[in-house]
């Protein structure tokens, strides 16, 4: 043993004698994780969060969360001498007078956008591969919670500098609060401490933005990761991978190095964006005053779909019992998002009800093998993309020579018509891909080599797949449709008749699939030549 090893050993021993960490570390540092690029999307979100914490802390050193009116005397000429809130003035101060301040602001904002992008792409990966199935439903719910909080946290951050876009966003948020029937106006007064904009809003959201929500984030992310740790990571199917094992590399040293390196790459990438691309140039927007508004007022992208929904809502309003109900805000601003997020949160339970599958799953699905789920996912995504596009309708109109009215009508109709079309098309594509897989397994790959046989017949040589590939294409389970008795033996209708009928139909839709090649099919074909 060299002197160096002896020294390291005695340090480790010293720590172990006091913490008893060796046993725990030995077990957990060798924990195996599967390797796939799509498993690293959640990592991007995690790293963006760390970047947000670090850059955000830097910003708090100089940001003054106050709506006190000050006169700007800083370095940016086009605003000098204007009256503005201390919050806005201090953001200008960070941008123009603090060394590295603008870079940090831009890193913080780019990291926020990437955080949300990463959360959504991670969610899509989890959804389309069926990683939310038992036993991971709670983690799915935690993820939905993190997504929702991320939207709120991002919106509050966008609101803090008190520039013209911030204020416009808050004004719309106030309108949405006011649209809640009966209590809306009281709630708005409560949130703003009086009539809009008041004096208290910026300090309040500052506390929530830098203390409350990051705290909740930390707690939820910790539980989210602990559950991944405890339940073990899912893996893509393949030879040697089962529901009972995990095939991959150990945490120490492979993933320590990979994840550590990836963190710095994400940080570097965000810093690069912050250095080369302007984001939220608040000095151009000007300070907020309720009397002003600018063309192209937009929220950040993760709120864009909500803005798009509000923009496409027809002007509906009713007056009853001395109250006004603004359906044009209430429906797109609260009811539809409520339905969407509830449906998303409950999806694991809905799917297990549809399939009747209550077993644990650790092997992921290939999206084509679960056509209905994939179709539902693409359908929802289509809805979101249409609403998101409508959120940017004015920018799209000016840049592509269209009219706002055309885009709005396209969205109003498209938001209802396109998702069902997307559902049908996706499902058909999935079934076709299943058919292609079956063909591939039974008849091999077309090589494009034409051979003339001695008696003059031409054949194309098909190359048989490797056994590993065949396994991967056929390992999935094809669940039979549920058979729910609609009547009992004496012909009395099932008391839960309607629900049973619904479940039966859902199951029939969900289990629609192309039969995969069975062992018998393969045997009949002999060695795959014919």
């Amino acid at each position, binding site marked *: 043993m060299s002197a160096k090893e002896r020294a390291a050993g005695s340090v480790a021993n010293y720590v172990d004698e006091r913490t008893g960490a060796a046993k725990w570390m030995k077990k957990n540092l060798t924990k195996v994780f599967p390797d796939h690029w799509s498993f690293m999307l959640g990592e991007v979100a995690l790293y963006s969060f760390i970047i947000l914490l670090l850059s955000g802390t830097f910003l708090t050193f100089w940001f003054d969360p106050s709506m006190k009116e000050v006169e700007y005397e800083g370095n940016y000429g086009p605003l000098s001498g204007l009256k503005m809130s201390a919050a806005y003035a201090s953001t200008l101060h960070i941008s123009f007078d603090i060394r590295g301040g603008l870079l940090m602001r831009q890193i913080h904002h780019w990291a926020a956008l990437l955080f949300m*992008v990463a959360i959504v792409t991670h969610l899509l990966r989890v959804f389309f591969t069926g990683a939310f199935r038992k036993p991971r439903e709670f983690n799915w719910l935690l993820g939905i919670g993190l997504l929702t909080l991320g939207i709120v946290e991002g919106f509050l951050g966008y609101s803090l500098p008190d520039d013209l876009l911030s204020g416009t966003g808050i004004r719309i948020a106030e309108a949405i609060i006011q649209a809640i029937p009966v209590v809306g106006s009281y709630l708005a007064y409560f949130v703003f401490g009086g009539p809009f904009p008041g004096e208290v809003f910026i300090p309040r959201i500052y506390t929530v933005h830098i203390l409350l929500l990051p705290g909740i984030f930390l707690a939820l992310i910790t539980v989210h990761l602990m559950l991944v740790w405890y339940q073990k990571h899912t893996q893509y199917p393949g030879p040697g991978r089962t529901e009972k094992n995990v095939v991959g590399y150990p945490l120490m040293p492979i993933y320590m190095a990979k994840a550590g390196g990836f963190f710095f790459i994400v940080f570097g*990438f965000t810093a690069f964006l912050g250095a080369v691309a302007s984001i939220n140039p608040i000095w151009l927007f000007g300070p907020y005053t309720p009397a002003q508004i600018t063309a192209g007022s*937009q929220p950040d992208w993760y709120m864009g779909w909500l803005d798009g929904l509000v923009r496409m809502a027809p002007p509906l309003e009713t007056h009853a019992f001395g109250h006004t109900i603004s359906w044009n805000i209430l429906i797109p601003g609260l009811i539809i998002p409520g339905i969407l997020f509830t449906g998303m949160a409950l999806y694991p339970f809905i799917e297990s009800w549809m399939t009747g599958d209550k077993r644990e799953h650790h092997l992921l699905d290939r999206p084509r093998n679960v056509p209905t789920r994939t179709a539902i996912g693409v359908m929802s995504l289509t809805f979101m993309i249409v609403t998101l596009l409508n959120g940017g309708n004015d920018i799209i109109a000016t840049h592509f020579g269209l009219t706002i009215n055309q885009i709005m009508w396209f969205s109003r109709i498209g938001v209802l018509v396109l998702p069902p079309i997307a559902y049908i098309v996706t499902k058909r594509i999935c079934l076709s891909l299943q058919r292609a897989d079956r063909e591939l397994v039974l008849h091999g790959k077309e090589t494009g080599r034409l051979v003339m046989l001695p008696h003059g017949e031409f054949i194309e040589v098909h190359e048989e797949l490797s056994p590993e590939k065949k396994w991967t294409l056929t390992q999935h389970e094809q669940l039979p449709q549920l058979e729910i008795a609609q009547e009992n033996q004496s012909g009395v209708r099932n008391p839960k008749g309607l629900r049973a009928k619904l479940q039966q139909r859902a199951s029939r839709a969900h289990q629609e699939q192309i039969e995969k090649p069975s062992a018998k099919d393969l045997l009949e074909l002999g060695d795959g030549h014919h």
Partner: protein
Amino acid sequence: MNFISRYRRSKFFGPALLAAALFILGTTYSVASATTFKAVTPASDKTTLVAEGKELFARGCSSCHGLNAEGGSIAPSLLGVGAASVDFQVGTGRMPMADMSVQASRKTPVYDEAQTAALAAYVASLAPGPASIKSADLAWERSGDTAQGGELFRTNCAMCHNFAGQGGALSQGKYAPSVMGAEPGQIYEAMITGPQSMPVFSDKIITPAEKLSIIKWIKSAEAEPSLGGASLGRTGPVTEGLLSWTLGIGGLIGVAVWLASKAR
């Protein structure tokens, strides 16, 4: 001629000859074309100017605006719009319109300065209206206040023209154009005449001094370098979101694929 025969087989001879020929041709052309300077007819005589304008109007404008500028089913009457309006519409190339779309867009002017002045004089002679404004006559650089101009711009203009004057969409395909690159005189004329969908900002609403401040702010926004890196069009969060969904997550997924690829 020893010099040429010594080098003419060099591999640089051909390109050098070509460069020399292009240089001579280019110089000759620029010298020759510089001499085709057209003298502007001195428009001292007002009546001849009006007559000239009437002639131009009858040929180029009357088919839509009527023989006496009284307007028609497809174009408004020009009585009382003043020289400022003509100078703006014709001087920025908006009139004559390229096509009958919802809005006349800025393009290379069809009439030169003298012709525009003649048209303006003719239209102004029909009924009184605001006089045209020359950029050189505006003292915006000396007397304008940039910060106040920005405040006025955000209060009165940004709702259509965007916070940085980049323009924005209006209903039914109409739009507020970008004010970047517009001449000070044209900006001033636009404010006093209210072209197309734009309202008129009379001197009671925005005083002449304030108008100069607005021009000064526009010019300062135009000259301002993009301080935080690539400007992404100064259109707000839409392009930022687009970049984060393309280069942002695209680049990071690329890295992830690279990290998760097996060593071969």
